[in-house]
């Protein structure tokens, strides 16, 4: 089994975590052997390409990890948030073709389509709020500044 990932999302960087990969391969090997005991289950799983482990990941911007980024499985309400290290574990096993939506106040919403058997995802968010302006409305009446001459 080959771990493979690609993405359509722009500016996405996925880092391959070597120890995790080795772990995943070992896990795959074992789980495949165990799952042979339940042939039907294995068949349906491989048909949908359901991941054997929960997807983990890190979300950051150019300054470092982001706390509180929302991650949703598109079209559902299943999701999670990143912790103070920017890390998350998606609570549900995902399958090929699933789309994750990363959203956070101040950053472009990012959609990532899962291809292959992803175990580790690194997502960089780009800010979409740059210039900050502000004026408030008021009911305070306009009052002319009057010179002494006018008075």
């Amino acid at each position, binding site marked *: 089994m080959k771990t493979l990932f690609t993405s359509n999302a722009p500016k996405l960087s996925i880092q391959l975590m070597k120890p995790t990969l080795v772990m995943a391969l070992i896990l795959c090997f074992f789980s495949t052997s165990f799952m042979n005991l339940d042939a039907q289950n294995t068949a349906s799983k491989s048909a949908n390409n359901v991941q054997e482990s929960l997807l983990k990941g890190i979300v950051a911007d150019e300054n470092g990890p982001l706390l*509180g980024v929302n991650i949703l499985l598109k079209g559902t309400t299943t999701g999670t948030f990143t912790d103070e290290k920017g890390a998350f574990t998606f609570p549900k096993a995902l399958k090929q073709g699933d789309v994750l939506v990363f959203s956070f106040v*101040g950053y472009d919403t990012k959609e990532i389509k899962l291809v292959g058997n992803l175990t580790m995802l690194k997502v960089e968010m780009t800010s979409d709020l740059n210039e900050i*302006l502000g004026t*408030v409305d*008021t009911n305070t009446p306009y009052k002319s500044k009057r010179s002494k001459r006018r008075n």
Partner: protein
Amino acid sequence: MTYLRYIIVLFAVWQTNAQRSDFNHIDFKKADSIALSYSNETLHNLPDLTSKLTANLETEVEQFRAIYFWVCHNISNDYSWYLKNKRKRERFKDDLDQLNSWNEQSRSRILKNMLNKKRTICTGYAYLVKKLATLANIECEIVDGFGRTSMIDVDKLTTPNHSWNAVKIDNKWYLCDPTWASGIPNPETQKFMFYYNDGFYLANPKLFAINHFPADEKWLLMDQNAPTFKDFIDAPVVYGKAYTNLNGHEAPKKMHHDVRKYETITFKYELAKSVEADDITFEIDDGYRNKKIHPKTTHQEDSSLTVQYQFDTTGFYDVHLFIGEDRISTYTFNVKG
């Protein structure tokens, strides 16, 4: 090029009068009550918030309405931060490095306050409206530009100071101002208070242009009669209540006037709803005292209101138009003998 020009003109003509009355057949009660029922929602899960606000609404205009209404009723204005931001921006206006560094600093504070306290200044309002609308597949833009109130010194209005939204509904662009719709500073404490003004929702572009001038003029959404920046600077002060009472402010086009005693001054407005002649008053301030008068000549035809006035004494006057209790606009008159 010629083709392009035709297309631009056509586009502009087609855009005229993109305003709320296009949706008179729609009752926004359902959208408004959905928005109010989610007052306890936070900004931590924007896709979820968007779907809660829009899932049970059929039309684009109602979906956008629920988003806009939610933002206007749940995001408070960080008034003290606004004052600080204004000072800094004025100080750094000629120093791009300083301005950028200030923007970077304020950006992280603004995001934190928006997320954790649901508090922001206007770019934050416009930003949230855009963000939620985009998640609902409604095309929406932040428009940066110049906003003008009674407290703004127009001589100092040299850099953009305000942000609002343009939104595309049923293939047509409309304007709205969620910041000004959400509330005003309390006149006594100067602290922000929620005081929703429905007039800023899909406002008439002609009225909107009197106190909103976009940095990119295409967002005036007007044809070749579009005002210039000078027209905007010269225009009278109009208040939030103008938006609930008027569809247009036709005359006078200027704030400051030199007139003669007994010269007839004509005021002309497009009304949003008909008014009683008794409801129209001028508050006239000569610097010492205020007096309220009913102008002798008022004329109403369909939605058009004409008011005429003559000064019978010389002096310098601030004139405020009221409809009922609502302060609509202010002009000054220097009356000579």
